[in-house]
């Protein structure tokens, strides 16, 4: 462990650190490295990157500020933290954009070299906030990071312009010392990552060590802090983001289904990382097609599904709109297909890099005609893994498109994940049809009486040649039918097939407390904030219950009964009340909505306050 004998070490149970700088300052990288070092150290953690939509927003401006928040803890935590305890601001714009979130008494570390007139003007400061008293509520450390970095990296031989770019590693070294993180993982990572650029590797290493040494020796810092390892369940852990967990879940699902995996996708933020990740794993037999557009992405997936693949498409925002027509065809063809929607702020281009949960009603109703399909939603980054498998299981068993909802917060956020035992994951394979099913003929719409699924007969199977299409089909034969009674019957059958999935779903898991008469009901990525809020409310001695839905269509069978046990129901959502509308319509329950659409997840305190208001009413 790091030698910090020069200063006393204070123990903390958790700390929330936000790294903020210009887009070009490498803040995401810095945050990510700090997180990795903490993960290896055994802390529980939760992260939230926050970056601008513009790839190269003007340097030094508020629009160009990029931030990464990490919450590290010695106990299990649910969110990246409401407010930072420590803010690292690499320039005036980063300070201005983030200081509002820093609570009184918080720690502020600034790169004082950047507080020159030009940068201050760009950030919209008339005068430097350093020394004008406006930051008096905080413990401020002014560190000339740029000049110290240039000085420290001289021996690496980089030009000053390039040397200056290592300043994020200086900041990382400083924070590594302050929070007693192990140095070794980061030093090793630098060597590997920059192996092909020895000068950069040397500069970054020197900057990192200089930052660490600065913390150790400078008189500025009275304490180093330690956040001890968390008491997590024993096992092998890795740190994982939602998008990688989702990609791995798809690979696992294909493995469990004994089918090849096909992804048809068009690049779109924040879903593209799933395409990137899956493209790497060709040795699993994964085929990825970067299609000409969103429509072709899902179209190709549907073609692959017809051919017997586990087929999926990944998208976000406007991409989901474009796929609606093909999803409707998949409903009519009754073929398994996964549509993965990494929700982002809308409408239209909206907030491409920011999170929102505003596609639930789109998933539910966003197609013409009566076109029901199952919907599942992931609740944490690592939960994306098992949600992908569950979506695939439903799609294959019931021969239906399934929409999986994740969002920008889950996609890019990370958490430690106890690795599942690959051998213990349940088989989800289904048989293809191989024989005629009706008096020597093959009827493609003759259903399994239990699941109402139709047979999946793939091309290449002799004797089962058949045609499918988007025109209404006669039940049984699958031939084109314009018969009015048949259309009504088929409409009801398609609805009943999806509704029938509820029969096999587990009941709602309620975190109940005796005496609670308020139920907080959530779905998707609000899981962490709701859980933290419920804990805080209980810590205040108030009673509250909570439940979180993974299956949004159909709902678990006992949901109505669960809701009826509570006098009040609160549904926090990052939209204008979409689940609450479904719940009110389905169960005639007077659910109260708590909404937020700022492109940022809920803070636990926002939900906590609402619960307190309701329980004391």
């Amino acid at each position: 462990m790091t030698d910090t004998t020069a200063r006393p070490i204070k123990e903390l149970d958790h700390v929330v650190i936000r790294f903020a700088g210009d887009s070009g300052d490498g803040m995401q990288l810095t945050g990510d490295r700090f997180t990795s070092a903490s993960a290896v150290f055994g802390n529980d953690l939760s992260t939230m990157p926050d970056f601008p939509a513009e790839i190269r927003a003007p340097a030094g401006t508020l629009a160009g500020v990029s931030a990464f928040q990490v919450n590290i803890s010695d106990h299990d935590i649910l969110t990246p933290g409401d407010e930072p305890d420590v803010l690292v601001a690499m320039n005036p714009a980063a300070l201005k954009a983030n200081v509002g979130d820093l609570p009184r008494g918080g720690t502020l570390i600034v790169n004082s070299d950047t507080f020159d007139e030009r940068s201050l003007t760009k950030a919209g400061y008339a005068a430097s906030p350093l020394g004008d008293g406006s930051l008096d509520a905080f413990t401020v450390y002014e560190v000339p990071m740029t000049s110290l970095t240039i000085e420290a990296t001289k021996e690496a031989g980089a030009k000053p312009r390039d040397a200056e770019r290592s300043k994020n590693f200086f900041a990382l070294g400083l924070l590594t010392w302050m929070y007693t993180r192990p140095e070794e993982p980061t030093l090793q990572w630098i060597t590997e990552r920059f192996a092909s650029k020895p000068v950069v590797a040397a500069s970054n290493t020197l900057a990192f060590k200089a930052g660490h040494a600065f913390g150790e020796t400078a008189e500025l810092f009275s304490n180093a802090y330690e956040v001890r390892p968390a008491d997590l369940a024993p096992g092998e852990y890795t740190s994982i983001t939602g998008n990688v967990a989702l990609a791995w879940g798809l690979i696992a699902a294909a493995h469990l289904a004994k089918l090849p995996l096909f992804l048809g996708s068009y690049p779109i933020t924040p879903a593209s990382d799933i395409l990137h990740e899956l493209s790497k794993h060709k040795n699993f037999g994964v085929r990825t097609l970067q299609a000409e557009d969103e429509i072709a992405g899902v179209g190709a997936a549907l073609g692959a599904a017809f051919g017997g693949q586990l087929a999926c498409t990944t998208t976000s925002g406007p991409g989901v709109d474009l796929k609606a027509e093909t999803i409707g065809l998949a409903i009519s063809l009754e073929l398994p297909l996964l549509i993965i929607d990494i929700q982002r702020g809308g409408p239209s281009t909206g907030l491409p890099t920011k999170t929102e949960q505003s596609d639930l009603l789109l998933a539910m109703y966003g197609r013409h005609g009566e076109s029901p399909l199952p919907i599942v939603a992931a609740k944490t980054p690592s939960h994306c893994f098992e949600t992908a498998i569950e979506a695939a299981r439903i799609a294959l068993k019931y021969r239906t498109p399934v929409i999986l909802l994740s969002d920008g917060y889950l996609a890019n956020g990370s958490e430690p994940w106890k690795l599942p035992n690959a051998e213990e994951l349940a088989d989800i394979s289904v048989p293809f049809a191989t024989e005629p099913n009706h008096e020597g003929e093959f009827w493609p719409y003759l259903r399994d009486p239990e699941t109402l699924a139709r047979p999946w007969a793939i091309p290449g199977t002799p004797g089962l040649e058949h045609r499918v299409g988007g025109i209404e089909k006669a039940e049984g034969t699958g031939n084109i039918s314009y018969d009015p009674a048949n259309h009504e019957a088929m409409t009801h059958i398609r609805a009943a097939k999806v509704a029938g999935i509820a029969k096999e779903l587990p009941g709602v898991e309620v975190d109940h407390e005796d005496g609670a008469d308020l139920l907080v009901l959530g779905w998707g990525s609000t899981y962490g904030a709701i859980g933290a809020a419920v804990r805080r409310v209980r810590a205040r001695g108030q009673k509250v219950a909570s439940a979180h839905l993974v299956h949004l269509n159909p709902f678990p069978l006992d949901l109505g009964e669960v809701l009826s046990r509570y006098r009040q129901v609160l549904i926090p959502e990052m939209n204008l009340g979409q689940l609450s509308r479904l719940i009110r319509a389905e169960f005639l329950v007077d659910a109260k909505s708590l909404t937020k659409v700022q492109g940022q997840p809920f803070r636990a305190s926002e939900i906590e306050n609402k619960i307190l208001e309701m329980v004391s009413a």
Partner: protein
Amino acid sequence: MTDVSVPVTTKKDWSSDQEVRWCPGCGDYSILTAVQMLMPELGVRRENTVFVSGIGCAARLPYYMNTYGMHGIHGRAPAIATGLAVTRPDLDVWVITGDGDALSIGGNHLIHALRRNVNLTILLFNNQIYGLTKGQYSPTSEVGKVTKSTPFGSVDTPFNPISLALGAEATFVARTHDMDRKHMMETFRRAHAHKGAAFVEIYQNCNVFNDGAFEQITGRENRASQLIPLVHGEPIRFGAEQEMGVRLDGQGRAQIVRVADVGEEHILVHDEAREEPGLAFTLSRLARGPHEPTPIGVFRAVERPDYGAALQQQLVEAQERKGPGDLKALLSSGATWQV
């Protein structure tokens, strides 16, 4: 290519039990017959054959084939067929489309399927009109076309489908017409044999909404003087006495000439295998519409790796390099730690 284990079949084996529902006299019937008659000759199996279509009159064809088939959505057949063809290289995938389906709503999918060289046989029924929606002008209708949606005449410049396909890097591009079954069958046979995306434009008469659109060139008595057969390795000649021919003028433009006037040695010899598509493009511009001498046959047939095979190759190489996928190893492939 003939697999002796493939059972002998007849046209009837390839015809489904569904009643064919095009308007009486529609050119689609003769195209369907040509396809159904060709299939027994190809040495392929019904279960390995898939017809995928979009929306429009032509798109009904898969229902009439006793094979696997999908009647998809408007314009999207090339995209759907791409997913099928790249994941199932063992299948013969045909795309049946029309001028509205392929060139208007589905233009993007068509050009990308051609560019990628997906192993598909694409038959575009060009009748220069919207039939199923009852008679609006299409992206191949001539300027000035009076239809329900253009009562004062269309002001849109039409696509030339052959020029478009060549511009989209298609490796096989051909034209045929619904009045000549033998020519259709021969063209389809070549298209089917081609590895990669094969594009065939078929001049097809819609006798209800655009009757006689191609009569000036495909009518029995007009063909000899109005259709210019492209035959690989042969001088490009036509006319009842083969008295007409095509040559390149000093500017590199294709020009119709009397053979006697310029001498046989100056008649252009057709080379469908030319890597550079410029000359094929020039030939595609010879006629401004189906009312003057028009080339038919194979404009271009070149080899390029097909997309599905290239993707398959990457899979094989990845498995050779890394071994078959191991889920357990994947899950612990990042930095892991024990608690």
